[in-house]
């Protein structure tokens, strides 16, 4: 049984909830009291679950894996029968990996600012905003070109890949980091396209389109 050490308001945890759902996998959600409990920084969590004190952590049998992007790679490699989340093609995997790096920049910038405003965690807001805008512009540039050439997903694919899942949550939550998405029309169109994928599930802060 797959277990997910999870926090409801975490965009990084949501990446795995989304892929697990789209892969049709059963799993046990283990709620971690991130705020106000700071359980992810408790001695027990650091010792047994993740020495970095971060979420999400994925457990599959005895196999324990930290880092949202690493977990996306693992789940897609292990369970994606259709092979479109992490296509078995060197060039595509190379491109996907560049976007997994951008996802880390989004965590460092948008997620950090969001945690500052929501939970009072320390952050250099000016640096966060500069990195956020540079990352959002990079995404908008790539998506504008990809949309125009008929392969509208981040890694230039016809179907979304884990590159899209990795970058989606914090791009969509930019408003909570007090960043305006109106300068990025292609990015906004991509966010909408993700939300309207069959079987999409939302997270608090990302409006559920299905009603």
């Amino acid at each position: 049984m797959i277990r997910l050490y999870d926090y409801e308001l975490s965009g990084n945890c949501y990446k795995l909830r989304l892929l697990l759902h789209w892969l049709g996998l059963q799993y046990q959600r283990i709620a971690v009291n991130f705020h106000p409990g700071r359980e992810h920084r408790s001695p027990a969590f650091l010792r047994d679950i993740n020495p970095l004190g971060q979420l999400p952590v994925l457990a599959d049998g005895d196999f324990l894996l930290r880092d949202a992007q690493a977990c996306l790679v693992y789940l897609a490699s292990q369970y994606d029968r259709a092979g479109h989340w992490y296509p078995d093609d060197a060039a595509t995997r190379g491109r996907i990996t560049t976007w997994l790096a951008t996802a880390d920049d989004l965590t460092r910038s948008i997620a950090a600012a969001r945690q500052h405003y929501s939970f009072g965690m320390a952050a250099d807001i000016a640096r966060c905003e500069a990195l956020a805008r540079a990352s959002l512009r990079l995404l908008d540039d790539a998506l504008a070109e990809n949309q125009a050439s008929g392969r509208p997903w981040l890694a230039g694919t016809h179907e979304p890949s884990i590159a899209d899942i990795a970058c989606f949550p914090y791009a969509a939550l930019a408003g909570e980091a007090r960043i305006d998405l109106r300068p990025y029309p292609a990015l906004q169109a991509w966010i909408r396209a993700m939300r309207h994928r069959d079987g999409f599930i939302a997270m608090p802060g990302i409006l559920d389109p299905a009603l």
Partner: protein
Amino acid sequence: MAVSPLWHPVAAAQMLRGGQNIVAALLAGQPLALWRSGSGAVQAWEDRCPHRGVPLSMGRVKGDQLACAYHGWQYAAQDGRCTAIPAMPDRPVPGKVCVKTYAALERQGMVWVNPADTAAGDAPPAQDPAAGVHLRSLGVDLPVAAIGAALERSGFDQAAPHAWRGSLDGVATRVYALDATPQWCLLHLFCDHAPPADQWSRRFAEIRALRDAIEQRGA
């Protein structure tokens, strides 16, 4: 016939898909919700539900109605009148509940909005429908007042209010500029023909280079 500068190029027409999406736009600091009803008519509304002030761009298009995300209140295309209040489904909706709407039309592959309440003046002319492919729209960190000079330094000439003509990668290109806020504007780029498949990347690289040049020169 002089085109009136009261018409502003807010979005590329193809970005609005009938009965589907709502584009959140900014026109001189005024938030707009742009959408196309199921029957195709483009709508430019104040981006604010008159119930509790929530942006309508967070809502949903349902045929010829727009539903607010907060309580599902529905508003009809064209006049913006409220037609349904789901919390009170059996009571008539008061006639005075209405979204503020603006005049909008489509020309040259763009959606133009006139935010003034007075007579609009001459609208931008139609364009030969065979001409014009929308390449992309993008934000530029420069106030619109500086855009003209920056575009001219990059080899573009002003053709009409908010519109410039020039060439990119040797191809005739139109640029429309929208005043979004005092800090940034939105540029919409069109070229006459779709580039061949092997030139897409280069064309888009040229667009990014143009943006970077404009931002640097305007700084």
